[in-house]
């Protein structure tokens, strides 16, 4: 799962997002007033020691003016510009992965996002011990990502539309779906249904969270059930697929949007390419499981570049939520 970054340092875990982000873990970006600030008190209480070492390592390892090499066109990109460009290469439009908070920031109106269930965390219900225990995995991911779990949910304003927004973050345990991801999304969906709001879920995930066994599988049924009632209320649900998006998440809420959009170049599918290759012993077709491949096979509505996402979402919501009252005219 570790996509080795172009400039790996000995201390920063080799997730692309962590390297490109200038914000050191544990420090709240003051330029994000729209978000509920992360619960700093708890966070510091919980990862006090790591935070200290984190700030030290920043001084020691990150050189002045960090540059990032685009893996696609090999252009050296100045980090600050890359961030300003929503982590999209301005030469070849390669979409780097982006954190959930940054993405929410790029979509909602300032100060409009009310986060829900920000404190909800996973528990090791099965007492799972493998090569590493689930407890240790959680602890290290809390520390590493400054996130509580793999999804952030809340209600915010996108242009003129109030909407339920769920955004996943791949850096937390590979965006895997456990009880917390399922529960937070279901609460978001239920609240949106109750308040007659559209829903946008931006997903990226490696699939269900093995450490929670069957509980993670059941989140698939649970989220789809909540969406069934949201759909019955004739409310729009837009699913946005981002790189990578696989397995349990794809086989549940991500695939039942009224509209399904994808970011350019995103890898999307049910089974991973290696599993398919091992099972079928066949060569995979070129571009297999990319957003473009899905579009050509009629599986998604559109490919939307990250920088156009907000405008396009507003456009779709405009189109779907302005009531034309056809039925009233017909029955009158």
């Amino acid at each position, binding site marked *: 799962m570790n996509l080795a970054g172009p400039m790996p340092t000995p201390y920063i875990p080799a997730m692309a997002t962590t390297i490109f982000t200038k914000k050191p873990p544990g420090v709240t970006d003051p330029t994000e007033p729209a978000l509920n600030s992360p*619960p700093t*008190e*708890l966070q*510091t*209480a*919980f*990862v*006090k*020691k790591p935070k200290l070492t984190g700030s030290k390592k920043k001084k020691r390892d990150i050189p002045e003016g960090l540059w990032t090499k685009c893996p696609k066109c090999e252009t050296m990109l100045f980090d600050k510009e890359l961030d300003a460009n929503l982590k999209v290469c301005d030469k070849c439009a390669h979409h780097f992965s982006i954190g959930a908070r940054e993405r929410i920031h790029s979509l909602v109106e300032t100060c409009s996002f009310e986060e829900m269930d920000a*404190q*909800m*965390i*996973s*528990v090791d*219900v*099965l007492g*799972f011990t*493998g*090569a*590493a225990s689930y407890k*240790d995995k959680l*602890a290290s991911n809390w520390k590493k990502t400054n996130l509580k779990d793999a999804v952030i949910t809340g209600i915010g304003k996108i242009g003129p539309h109030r909407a339920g927004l769920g955004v996943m973050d791949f850096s937390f345990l590979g965006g895997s779906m456990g*009880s*917390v991801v*399922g*529960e937070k999304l*279901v609460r978001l969906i239920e609240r949106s249904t109750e308040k007659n709001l559209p829903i946008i879920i931006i997903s990226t995930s490696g699939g*269900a969270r*093995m450490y*929670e*066994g*069957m*509980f*993670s*599988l*059941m*989140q*698939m*049924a649970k989220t*789809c*059930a909540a969406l*069934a*009632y949201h*759909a*019955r209320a004739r409310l729009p649900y837009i699913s946005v697929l981002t790189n990578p998006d696989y*397995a349990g998440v*794809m*086989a*549940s*809420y*991500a*695939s039942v949007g009224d509209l399904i959009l994808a970011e350019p170049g995103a890898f999307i599918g*049910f*089974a991973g390419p290696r*599993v*398919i290759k091992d*099972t*079928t012993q066949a060569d995979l077709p070129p571009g*297999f499981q990319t957003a473009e491949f899905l579009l050509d*096979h009629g599986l998604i509505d559109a490919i939307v570049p990250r920088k156009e996402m907000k405008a396009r979402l507003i456009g779709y919501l405009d189109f779907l939520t302005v009531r034309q009252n056809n039925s009233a005219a017909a029955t009158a």
Partner: protein
Amino acid sequence: MKHQLDFEKPIIELQGKLDDLRKHPETHSMGVNFEEEIKLIEAKIEETRRQIFSNLTPWQRVQLARHPKRPYTLDYLRTAFTDFEELHGDRLFAEDRAIVGGFAKLGDQRVVVLGTQKGRDTKENILRNFGSAHPEGYRKALRLMRLADKFGLPIITLIDTAGAYPGIGAEERHIAEAIAVNLREMTLLDVPIIATVIGEGGSGGALGIGVADRVLIMENAYYSVISPEGCAAILWKERSAASKAAQALKITAKDLLHLKLVDEIVTEPLGGAHNDLTAAAATLKQHLLKHLGELQALPAAERLKQRYAKFRAHGHFLERAPTPGEQAETARKSARKSAAKSAAAIPATAA
């Protein structure tokens, strides 16, 4: 004797001895009465079987669930049901023989039955794709379930699959969507739905026909988010750790009932369902009829409410900061200092 599992060996050996005694009385005919010995061996078989099968490990249960002689969906359709009339095709692309479905009668009830179906030999396995369905299987299932809904027929699903098929065609025709749509649509079908895991409950491929008012599981079946081998490959980096993974994932009927992830266990005859299909089918039928009766007594709206509540309740999480005790385990060193802080933080977060 071909299809034996390691832990079945002692029973098979005894059985062999017994058969020898019965077949060739002349070789032992020294005027001695072997009746007594036969009885002794029979008792010993029974005792050994009881001993082995009351102490099965999760991995042994997985092996039993995959036993090549284990009854499959069509076997139960011949025994627990009557008048099965198979219906084919998804009306879109193809007939997927990894999922069978159609009309049947359960007692005197008309029902629609669906189930994943493995093959008994290589030829049939190719036809049925080893019980791993393509998108067409899930779409056929949905078509038949909608048919059932339209005509007020209860739906019974039997689950026995290692998982949905990971292939190029399956991806091109969007297997993820086929499963996801079933999960959503099954939530709102008015008719009663009962799902039973009869063998392997392999992840999304199983859940794709598994959203139901009652979820039952047979005693030696398993239901898991990932195959034990798959989990072992990822977490232990070796597939041979599958038995450890089977243990850790909590996938046996007993574990799942304990975790409230299934509603009831359908007991199997001693030695597993393959040992006595008639008895296994009779028990299954009895359980299905009981639940069907209970579900039919409810108004549809109430059934849907309960169905939603049932899946809604699955999941465990904390809505507060970790307690000092939990912290001590995860962040040992800073535990003492932060205990006071996190305790103070709890009321703040609850607000």
